């Protein structure tokens, strides 16, 4: 498929270290070409190897999972450490909280982010508040919930949702979203080791599409640090996850039209790196945020409000948001609903010519 190849090339050129941004902290420096699935698998393997009290569980993870992220782990580490759960999201997360409360590293998989809602109560009312309400006697910091999110082209209502905004409204948990294989591995390792419960959204569209050189050893990408993927002067463009690939294409085309975009990957949504975005907007004077989730109440709204508060006098144009529409995720209308490259390009131009 030509699009996939182009996408891979684009991703490769956008994210390779030679662009002068902060390099990944690795020791040995040996890298291997991996897709997102293999990168996550590699991270999980490192965790299971280095932490004897770590467990990976969820629906169908034992044979490798529906997306193959957990392939081979049950064979390597045993069925008492990598195991299947019955079909009960609330049970899975609740169980994970309990396991983490006893000092273990619990990595729970929710098969699709669309199914996470039965577990919402456990995440919001139990996981997020455990440390706070017990006066730091107890905590479930060892809990990491991994779940694939985002559109794939034909997923329909219940295999395409981006529910990150719901979780960003909950103090006490962290929300992390990688944009590609090397970020995914580093961010997952940081998330698992972070002493707070983390919800880790994996862009399922990129599971096989995104391929790049990923360091084979143990490395970490710090949480709550946004990454400036591309430097620019005219407008700050902020996104995360799968949308970064689309934003990257839009920014390249904008450059051809003479607009220099500064592209930032937020990576951690809460607590988010306000300073990096603020510094960028103070330089460019314009901000565009893009995400797949519906526009109203999406996380872009929080970024917009915070930046307006902090950078009001520096802004040359209203903050622009190019997001999914305020409808349930549609079936055949996905191309209309999605924040496509053309919609973003149009908005970049509108902002620059305001």
């Amino acid at each position, binding site marked *: 498929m030509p699009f996939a190849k182009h996408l891979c090339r684009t991703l490769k050129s956008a994210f390779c270290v030679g662009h002068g941004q902060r390099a990944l902290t690795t020791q040995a420096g040996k890298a291997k070409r991996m897709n997102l699935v293999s990168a996550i698998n590699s991270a999980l393997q490192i965790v299971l190897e280095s932490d004897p009290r770590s467990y990976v569980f969820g*629906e*169908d993870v034992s*044979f490798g999972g*529906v997306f193959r992220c957990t392939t081979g782990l049950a064979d390597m580490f045993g069925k008492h450490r990598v195991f*299947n759960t*019955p*079909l*009960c999201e*609330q*049970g899975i997360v609740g169980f994970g909280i309990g396991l983490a409360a006893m000092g273990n590293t619990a990595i729970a998989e929710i098969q699709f982010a*669309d*199914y996470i*809602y*039965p577990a919402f109560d456990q995440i919001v009312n139990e996981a997020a508040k455990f440390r706070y309400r017990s006066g730091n006697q107890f905590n479930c910091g060892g809990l990491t919930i991994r779940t694939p999110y985002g559109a794939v082209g*034909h*997923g*329909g*209502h*219940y*295999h395409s949702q981006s529910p990150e905004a719901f979780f960003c409204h909950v103090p006490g948990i962290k929300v992390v979203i990688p944009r590609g294989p090397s970020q995914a591995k580093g961010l997952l390792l940081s998330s698992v080791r972070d002493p707070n419960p983390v919800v880790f959204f994996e862009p399922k569209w990129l599971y096989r599409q995104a391929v790049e050189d990923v360091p084979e050893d143990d490395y970490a990408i710090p949480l709550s640090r946004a990454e400036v993927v591309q430097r620019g002067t005219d407008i700050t463009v902020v996104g995360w996850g799968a949308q970064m690939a689309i934003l990257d294409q839009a920014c390249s085309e904008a450059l051809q039209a003479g607009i220099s975009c500064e592209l930032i990957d937020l990576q951690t949504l809460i607590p988010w790196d306000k300073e990096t975005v603020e510094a960028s907007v103070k330089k460019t004077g314009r901000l565009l945020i893009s995400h797949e989730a519906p*526009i*109203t109440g999406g996380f872009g709204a929080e970024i917009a409000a915070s930046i307006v508060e902090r950078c009001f006098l520096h802004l040359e144009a*209203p903050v*622009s948001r*190019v997001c999914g*529409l*305020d*409808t*349930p995720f*549609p*079936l*055949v*209308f996905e191309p*209309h*609903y999605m924040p496509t490259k053309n*919609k*973003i390009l*149009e*908005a970049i131009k*509108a902002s620059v010519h305001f």
Partner: protein
Amino acid sequence: MAPQISTLRQALCTRANASRFLASPSLSRTFSCSAEEDSTPFTVDIAVPFKGHHIEPPPQVAETSPKELMSFFRDMSRMRRMEIAADQLYKSKLIRGFCHLYDGQEAVCIGMEAALTQQDNIITAYRDHCTYLGRGGTLPEVFSELMGRKDGCTLGKGGSMHFYKKENGFYGGHGIVGAQVPLGAGLAFAQKYEKVKAATFALYGDGAANQGQLFESLNIAALWDLPAVYVCENNHYGMGTAEWRAAKSPEYYKRGDYVPGLKVDGMDALAVKQAVKFAKDHAITKGPIMLEMDTYRYHGHSMSDPGSTYRTRDEISGVRQERDPIERIRKLILLKEIATVADLKNIEKEVKKEVEDAVAKAKESPQPDPSALFSNVYVKGYGSRAFGCDRKHSSAVLP
């Protein structure tokens, strides 16, 4: 249509078989088309015994007629053909997204329809193509919806997992596993409140049987004596997980605990009919009851699942040979000489043509208009505003 077997042979066979199998006056023995109109009742023994939990099972016999058996055969053949056609359409990428096929399980919905009216409600999960047909849906509506076209039963907006037919008491068509069960309790409550002498059948699978919300709704239904029947379509695999690996107790008919339950051979349409009739009476007069339909699906969980990595091909072909619901009815029809082999083949041919015509018709249906993206988010006129990228032009009030 001329008779396919000689009258003499017919008479001999009738006499030979009559005493063994018929409990009431002999059947008229002519062509299949008159068999399709012959409502003379007779009873058939149900082979696999019912198993009751906190309840005395119904008698091991079912009352039926040539007309009913012929309609079972025709309807189940139509359902089978439809699912096979859907498989082919999916492989040729005309159907995209998710497609969960029901072939193998046809006896469950056919048996249910034989015992129910359209005043009874049925609500099920995503394996709903045949349930929809059973509830009065048509083949072109099914194929149009599967291909996301305007003439689909849900106007092309729902897809495979979201078929509905409100006027016939079919409440869908749900994607999230187990979520439809509490809805079923609510439907039953409404029926009781409105004093409608009917019941609600909430269907779910062996995978969903471990969902918490099912037990919450079971408690509510039992507490308030709702006319709710919980039907577990146990095809033994929740996606790729065998029932014994997911459930401590795979005896799903017993999981209701304080709610009585009945285990039924779900590949026998007459057994299903008998059990559902019994369950409906119980639900209306006494309160909730749980049914476990022991059934099997030939396809994998969905079209992305080959269905052979977690079970052997021998197992699948074994079930096909020994327990196939359509073959069972075919054998019964031939045994009772209600119709001949050629008659049944004709019906299969007719059904195949029906399905092909429906597919062709559905292919001509256009995709929904893009404005349908915004319709029915809220009640018409109460929507929110949607903006284009620049927030100045192209703003619209959602219809």
